[in-house]
């Protein structure tokens, strides 16, 4: 089954790497959109159907935690699973992110298999 994915990261290079890594990992992508910060991501969500959001935390304009808070406010978007792909490793930040509803996180740097395993598990849990 193919999933529509939104990748949110201020680095254009990293967005391409994530997109490519997710594809080669075996996780099936349908449509894929990219955003450079949380604000751009919210604008995309207003007009596109997204099954999964992969987001960084540290971004200008609107960071990952701010984006998560906005997503929670909107019934239409609050159900979309979010997985963080970030260098962030502090317990408090991750606790805050989980409290805001993320389904998982992957720390950079990552292997393709890690992405595949985390995303597959999360999407299977949601389907069930």
């Amino acid at each position, binding site marked *: 089954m193919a999933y529509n994915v939104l990748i949110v990261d201020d680095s254009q*290079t990293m967005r391409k790497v994530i997109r490519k890594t997710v594809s080669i990992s075996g996780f099936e992508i349908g449509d894929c959109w990219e955003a450079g910060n949380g604000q751009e991501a919210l604008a995309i969500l207003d007009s596109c159907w997204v099954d999964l959001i992969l987001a960084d935390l540290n971004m200008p304009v609107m960071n990952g935690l701010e984006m998560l808070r906005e997503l929670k406010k909107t019934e239409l978007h609050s159900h979309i699973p979010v997985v963080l792909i970030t260098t*962030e*490793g502090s317990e408090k930040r991750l606790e805050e992110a989980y409290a805001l509803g993320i389904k998982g996180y992957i720390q950079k740097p990552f292997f393709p298999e890690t992405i595949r395993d985390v995303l597959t598990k999360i999407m299977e849990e949601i389907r069930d």
Partner: protein
Amino acid sequence: MIDEILKNAIVVTGQVFETMFYTPIAVQQEEDELDSSPPSVSAFYRGEIGFEGRYSGKLILTIPVELAKTMAINFMGLEEAVSDAQTMDTVNELCNMICGNIFSHLDRKTIWNLTLPQTHEVSGQAIEADHGERTKAIRFDAEGYAVQLQIQLVPES
């Protein structure tokens, strides 16, 4: 304190270079020439990222442009040449990953705030690092190129 950071930096730099950039890297041995890069190397990228938490300062990564371009190609899995913008963005990501992992491995209980990394080109003369109680640098060898990682701590107020 800074020695502890550097110990982490050695491990983390190796992991980052090898996992996502497919570039083996090792600490340069003291007996090696300080500048082991090929003689043709005269241009470097200098990436900087600030950190703030239990202590504050910045991490500076200096890397030959030629090596950075190869790593950008590896990173993005491309077969064609990369642009300067893509290469500098790759150096930004290197700084981000190395810095983020050094401090989260050092102390997961502290919230570490990182600035957005910035990269610009510098000449060979600019890579010489200061050394002191609050500033230290390590040199690595990556595929025959010298890469320098420097940590500068800000005095506690």
